[in-house]
């Protein structure tokens, strides 16, 4: 398929997944607020920190009050990673590939956009924030469901999967990073059942609470981290995302998993293998934040490699990573 089209589909999926996950960040904080005794600033500032746009926020808003953070992450068009910006970009990308995606998919992206425009204009969304953020999650799911059931699972679909899964892996790592930091300042508390409410909220933000319960019963921080990083079956766990992303990547190229012919396959394969053989106690003793930070950097490198391999039309012989032996 056209490189430009593949690129647009990949980003369409990424941006929609991003919008959904930001809704999840905000939603979990709103829930926490109802039960928590933590001060508001402490509670909202990490959200901006993990979004990676702290400087921009600080400059334009100053204090991380609830309203400021919610507005920055939801309706601020000058924040390229806000929900509304993400949906606008997703729709622009979808617009350029309308002939490739199904009409149903386009209709859902378009509705997503119209919902946000409505909310932006009416200003009433935040009167009932739970409904509003839930609607955003549901709209994303409607899109994903339509994608799954109305589009052929060929190359274009695999680019959609690739974009969505890499974005989701990144965002799950960020949700975990932020909350871990907030909920568990002292390392000696790891492994003890504390602050049940906070952890339940964290799991909820990844829609993981019930699935976690089936596996672990008691809420223990290290198990929560294990579930969200290493679980093989839960669709928002980082490892699951990478596993499925790798399958899509190899469906696109036609190469066997376990081998690589380009640097996207090499980097993603390596990152996934790291997780395959990782152990949660090790991760925590070395520092969960450091682990997640390193993971995000490597994931970005996977993204760069995908761009170079498929979207910019460079060939393998120009690819420095490929000078290393392929197997």
């Amino acid at each position, binding site marked *: 398929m056209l490189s430009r089209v593949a690129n647009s589909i990949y980003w369409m999926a990424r941006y929609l997944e991003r919008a959904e996950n930001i809704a999840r960040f905000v939603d979990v904080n709103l829930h926490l607020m109802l039960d928590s005794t933590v001060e508001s600033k402490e509670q909202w500032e990490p959200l901006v920190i993990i979004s990676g746009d702290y400087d921009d926020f600080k400059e334009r808003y100053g204090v991380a009050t609830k309203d400021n953070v919610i507005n920055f992450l939801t309706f601020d068009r000058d924040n390229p990673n806000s929900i509304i910006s993400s949906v606008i970009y997703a729709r622009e990308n979808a617009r*350029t590939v309308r*002939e490739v995606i199904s009409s149903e998919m386009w209709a859902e992206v378009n509705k997503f956009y*119209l919902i946000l425009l409505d909310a932006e204009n009416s200003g009433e969304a935040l009167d009932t924030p739970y409904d509003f953020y839930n609607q955003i999650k549901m709209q994303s799911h409607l899109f994903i469901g339509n994608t799954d059931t109305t589009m052929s699972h060929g190359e274009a679909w695999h680019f959609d999967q690739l974009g969505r899964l890499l974005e989701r892996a990144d965002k799950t790592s960020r949700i975990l990073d932020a909350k871990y930091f907030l909920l568990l300042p002292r390392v000696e508390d790891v492994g003890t059942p504390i602050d049940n409410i906070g952890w339940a909220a964290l799991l909820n933000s990844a829609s993981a609470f019930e699935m976690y319960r089936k596996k672990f019963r008691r809420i223990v921080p290290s198990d929560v981290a294990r579930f969200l990083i290493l679980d093989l079956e839960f669709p928002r766990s980082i490892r699951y995302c990478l596993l499925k992303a790798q399958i899509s990547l190899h469906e696109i190229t036609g190469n066997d998993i376990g081998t690589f012919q380009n640097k996207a396959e090499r980097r993603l394969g390596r990152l996934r293998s790291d997780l395959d053989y990782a152990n949660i106690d090790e991760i925590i003793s070395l520092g969960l934040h450091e682990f997640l930070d390193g993971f995000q950097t490597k994931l970005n490198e996977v993204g760069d490699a995908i761009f170079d391999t498929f979207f910019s*039309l460079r060939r393998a012989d120009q690819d420095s990573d490929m000078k290393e032996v392929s197997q």
Partner: protein
Amino acid sequence: MDFDSYDPGKFYDELFESKGKPRPGTKILIDRLSSFPKQEILERQKAAEAALFNMGVTFTVYSDESGIEKIFPFDILPRIVEPQDWAHIEKGLKQRIYALNLFINDVYNDQKIIKDGIIPKDILYSSKCIQPKCEGLNPPKGIWCHITGSDLVRDKDGVFYVLEDNLRCPSGVSYVLENRQVLKRTFPLVFEKSNILPVDDYPDRLSRMLQYLAPSNVESPKIALLTPGIYNSAYFEHSFLAQQTGIELVEGNDLVVKDGFVYMRTTKGFEKVDVIYRRIDDDFLDPKAFNPDSLLGVPGIMEAYKSGRVALANAPGTGVADDKVVYAYVPKIIKYYLGEDPVLPNVPTYVCWEDKDREYVLNNLDKLVVKPANESGGYGLLMGTYASVKQRAEFAEKIKENPRNYIAQPTLSLSRVPVIVDDDHFEGRHVDLRPYILYGEDIYVMPGGLTRVALKKGSLVVNSSQGGGSKDTWVLSDLPK
């Protein structure tokens, strides 16, 4: 919501013969509409608009700052064309397109029509849309104008006239297809009871026509639709047609000419393209052949085309027949090439380039519509009847300065169709009709077309860029269902 107070007045109404008397083919619809309470009709109108909006059936208005996308205003009352009228239109358009294709080919090759003194050479060579680069060109299968969207209007006497031909990149066919989808949902019972000719096979016919153009040694040709990109006002249509036909939608940057062939950049390297339905104007198509500043086109594509390695639809150069001065000669063109009288007449046209005509125009500006020869979209024209004395005087100067650039036509009293006004009642509004014609193995006229409606009371300007809307167009068949 009834038609008791609806009065066609002195106009030709497409649905009513006279007050209270629907035309024979419209009775099922009118009865159905009359049986609905007002609220029901308004709800159906709202549902139709919502469907179009959710489908993203939008176009771009450049002058509007508030947002770049709008839905094309849509009115749920269809325009209905009776079988005998349609048979006449279809016959006339086939004749016209066949003759125009011969004409374009002649202009760029033997120029017999000039040698035989039918059209002055100066007229042709002063047309802005003539492409000297096309001289000597023999397009695949001898076809130049593969896709045409002729604008027809109906005067108060009920006669259909051709207003213009649009042989370059006519747009709007996607609205015809989407409008039909929406109306089937809006009036399912009426569709069931009536015998309305389908338009839904247009994408399939388009695709077959494009395949027909492929170089004969190519077994399964790769076809692409070349768009200027998402900021083009007709982008929705480009992507819609690509989606419905399954052909690849490409932008100029996706294509590259190598070793005389055209390729597209894909995730797996370069792939050859055999047929291109281009929706980019001639001037922007190839910076090497035409406008060197174009960033939209594909450098070298014209050479690939001339060598027969890629087919283009429409061929470059067809715009010469869109020139409104050349248009005035179409009846003579038909007579010259086919030896027949035109089935569909032109709107009577005064060519300001000719002294006698110009004198008449200048003396009768208050009765005429004056149009520039090479504009489209309803821009730059003078509606003499409604213009002020000052506007007319200014226009007279323009005409004297550059007579070649102007033609004039009497102000027609366009036919009307009822629309819903103020969510309250029906009123007549003026319409035109743009059927779409495909020229491949044979000539196909889509049964229907885009009915554009001037939604402003009394307005005769139907262009979407100037406040026009659209309606579904039902062509009735007299064959038993």
